[in-house]
């Protein structure tokens, strides 16, 4: 009996092997989430920690500035055999380090290079911060001190001088070191971007006078208060308030915690930790529907409210509650299972806040928003708040707006003294249907530059089939023109 059973078992095993126990998988080709690592020509390498510029940046405990790059064949040889220009593309709001690649940058560059329309160049694509879609490449503790990243520690070296690069907190030095094929001369260096990236490109160029020979941008927030001083971003304040109210009415939790969903209506516990907020409900279980919208308590930054989110990012950059933080970076070590383990933590010694100078006797401003960023590992255990430049009616709140307007390109241009963009060729892609008043802001900035005797190239991008124009959708076309402009400007 045992022999027969073994025989049967043997036959079954053989049959099972013969008839396809090999797992073919599903054969469905997929790429890893949002990551273009491994794509031809895409180098995810230029991701570099910038200390201390990004030490306190929200949700960036590794202090990284993310980037990716396109490099032509042979450009990474050591020593470099084919010197070539460097182009920096700055991501717009919600644009990650692969933003331009996803729009076809790699394929486009290969096509244009092969056809001789552009010269070979190394293109570095800098990511925007994803937390609130972007911080306008501003300069603050929670948003990151981008200015110190962009201002070169050693202008002489990045412009072709001798010596060794030394600065760690210097993007240009880093790129020229990382890509030795890049030519360290302003005439072979360009920068550009769209949307918030356009603002970033100009901000970097203004902060680094003479560092770039070409700037090419598409519509963006290039003049915060518009041509008349009362439009631009100001025109978005009402829409942000409407977003908030609509979101509050459509969603059941805004700074509240739902604790019991079995009743006929939702019971909530109102968070009363926020000062200056009506605390009527602080000890009572209440019907959610009876709670009115409260701008300061209920302000939210959901991705479904793009304008609010963008303004939040700007607020963290231009009007954070913490104007200056004094802190120490501490390296902790522990010996565990035969290995030393190291971790970094931040200890805040002092915090200087914006509110102290705004209200009599201190306290928060009338547009203070707290509770958005919690104390957790993503924020190094530090709560950070901000002030909005508008109130619950959408009206401009001047004390905070003044801080924003100090970051307006016109003001930065003026603060630079002599023309910081002198010698730079500039190219603008525009369409009057660009979102969020970007067209008007761009035109206003262009008018300003023309007033400063700059000659600008303007390219009107358009849509297909009379569709409304949104720049991201036509980015492929814009990029083509943008690359050709830079290449022509680089010369031979």
């Amino acid at each position: 009996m045992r022999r027969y059973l073994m025989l049967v078992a043997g036959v079954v095993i053989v049959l099972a092997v013969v008839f396809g126990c090999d797992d073919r998988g599903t054969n469905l080709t997929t790429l890893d989430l949002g990551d273009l690592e491994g794509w031809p020509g895409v180098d995810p390498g230029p991701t570099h920690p910038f200390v201390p510029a990004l030490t306190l940046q929200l949700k960036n405990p590794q202090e990284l500035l993310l980037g990716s790059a396109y490099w032509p064949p042979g450009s990474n040889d050591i020593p470099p055999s084919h010197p070539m220009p460097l182009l920096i593309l700055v991501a717009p709001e919600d644009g990650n380090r692969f933003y331009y690649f996803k729009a076809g940058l790699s394929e486009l560059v290969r096509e244009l290079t092969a056809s001789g329309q552009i010269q070979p160049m190394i293109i570095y694509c800098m990511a925007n911060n994803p937390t609130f879609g972007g911080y306008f490449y501003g300069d603050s503790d929670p948003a990151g001190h981008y200015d110190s990243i962009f201002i070169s520690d050693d202008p002489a070296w990045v412009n072709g001088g001798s010596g060794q690069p030394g600065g760690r907190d210097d993007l240009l030095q880093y790129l020229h070191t990382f890509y030795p094929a890049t030519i360290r001369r302003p005439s072979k260096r360009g920068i550009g971007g769209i949307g918030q990236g356009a603002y970033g490109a100009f901000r970097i160029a203004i902060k680094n006078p003479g560092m770039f020979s070409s700037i090419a941008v598409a519509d963006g927030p290039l003049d915060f208060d518009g041509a008349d001083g009362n439009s631009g971003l100001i025109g978005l304040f009402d829409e942000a308030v409407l977003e908030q109210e609509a979101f509050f009415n459509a969603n059941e939790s805004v700074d509240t915690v739902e604790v019991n969903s079995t009743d006929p209506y939702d019971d909530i516990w109102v968070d009363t930790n926020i000062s200056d907020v009506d605390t009527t409900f602080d000890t009572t279980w209440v019907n959610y529907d009876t709670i009115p919208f409260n701008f300061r308590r209920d302000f939210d930054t959901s991705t479904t409210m793009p304008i609010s989110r963008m303004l939040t990012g700007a607020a963290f950059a231009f009007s954070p509650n913490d104007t200056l933080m004094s802190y120490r970076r501490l390296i902790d070590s522990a010996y565990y299972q035969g290995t030393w383990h190291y971790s970094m933590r931040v200890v805040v010694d002092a915090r200087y806040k914006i509110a102290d100078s705004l209200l009599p006797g201190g306290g928060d401003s009338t547009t203070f928003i707290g509770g958005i960023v919690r104390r957790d590992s993503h924020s190094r255990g530090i709560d950070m708040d901000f002030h909005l430049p508008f109130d619950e009616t959408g009206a401009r709140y001047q004390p905070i707006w003044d801080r924003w307007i100090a970051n307006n390109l016109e003001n930065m241009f003026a603060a630079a003294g002599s023309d910081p963009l002198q010698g730079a060729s500039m190219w603008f892609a525009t369409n009057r249907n660009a979102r969020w008043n970007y067209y008007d802001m761009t035109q206003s900035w262009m008018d300003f530059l023309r007033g400063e005797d700059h000659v600008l190239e303007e390219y009107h991008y358009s849509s297909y089939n009379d569709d409304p124009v949104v720049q991201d959708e036509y980015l492929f076309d814009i990029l083509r023109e943008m690359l050709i402009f830079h290449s022509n400007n680089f010369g031979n």
Partner: protein
Amino acid sequence: MRILTLAVAVMLLLTSWSGSLYASGFENTGLGTTARGMGGAFRAIADDWSAAYYNPAGYAYIVDNQLGISWGFILFRDEITPRYEDVDDFGNEYGWGIANGQTIYNFHRILDKPSAGFVVRLPMMGGETVFGLSAFQPFDQSLRWKMYSLDANLLRAYNEDAVGNRKVPGIHYLIDLDVVAFQATAAREFNEGKLAVGVGLQLLRGDLWFSDLVFRDNPMPEGTMLDDRPRERVPEFADNRGRGWGFGLRGGVIWKPTDKLDVAATAYLPFDITIKGETFFTFIMPKAYYLWGDVPAGSAEFLFVSGEIPTQKSDFETTLKLPASLAFGVAYRATEKLTVALDAEYTLWSTYDGLDFSFSNFSGSPLLEQEFFQTDLANPVSWDNTGKISLGARYLLHPKLTLLAGACVDQSPARNSTDFTPQFMDLGTKKSFNGGGILHINQWDLGVITSYTNSPDINLEGLVDSDGNDTFDNFPGAYKADTYETVLSLGYRF
């Protein structure tokens, strides 16, 4: 009696398991090693417990009490190269996320299909009536596919956040249909053994797990950016899981005109099963943040540019229409050791018109309380009746070993239609080849057979909306299908 009690316990255990397991083909390929080894040409032989499935009249000639189990192991090796795409006015092909051009395999799974039964002879009404109780799956189908990839189609522009998002179901097309029959059978001889009649009364239990991906017509105003490509269709995943009960009747006769020739006729009449259960919906909404400024945030319209992946639940109900069938068979004992048999079966698949799901009791975000998200879905098909011819032989090589061989040709109900989908891979006239043997050891019979079924390759072109509800009811592409099956059996005569 103890062995009967044991038999019932084993059978119930096996069949309760099979209710959640997977098996082959919408109509079962059969059961039992003798029958399966002979390609299904067993209706005029029907001399073991599996006659409950092939011809209940065969019980009348079973001289022993019997207990048997059969366990099939099936591997579907199917593949589809999708062409789920449309062509625009300029001749450019475009899709909505199905991995067009890639050859996709169904999930690699070795499915098992247990069945069991016993037969007892009891004196009754002036003679011996043979009774049996058995459990098997007259219908089953199990296939899983992963077909949707925004990466593969360079469709990140539709919703970049959906790429790799865990909220997107990992299985895009799935069917796991099990109809288990608990059958009580009675059979008796007449006319001095020249005629036997048997009937079976079935209690049917249907378990359905059906996941489908449909690309719904975007309800936003046509001609606007909200409805423009690639947002013109919104992927909707519907994962339906439910069960229901029904009844079925099976009857047969065997006539022995000579000592060597047996002739059989059978009929099977299963009644519809109403399946009720729960559906889990997942929608992948377009993400067009450059349009966010054009649509009020928080509004229902905003959902169609938000890039969100909302989900909701509902109850569902559908009717599983099972086909009746008629069959005839002949068996000829050429020698004392060799028996050859031929069966012909005709199945009324035209009565099956697909699965039509009606949904109710939705629960989800209030934003989903709009017609688009609560529309009933249907998978209509237009099938034809089918014929199946089986030819088999049984040879007693040794008192302890019987050899089996068989082949069959089986039509597809979808052979004239264009409504192929990944869940039903019945591509055309199938050819099946079977072989194996049975060891006889005292009162035990140990059987093993193996089977290979080949389907013709087909190329299906063009999307079809057969019921006019703005969703496509077929899945164009190049289809291939092969099926491998091994069946083990254990029988005990007492």
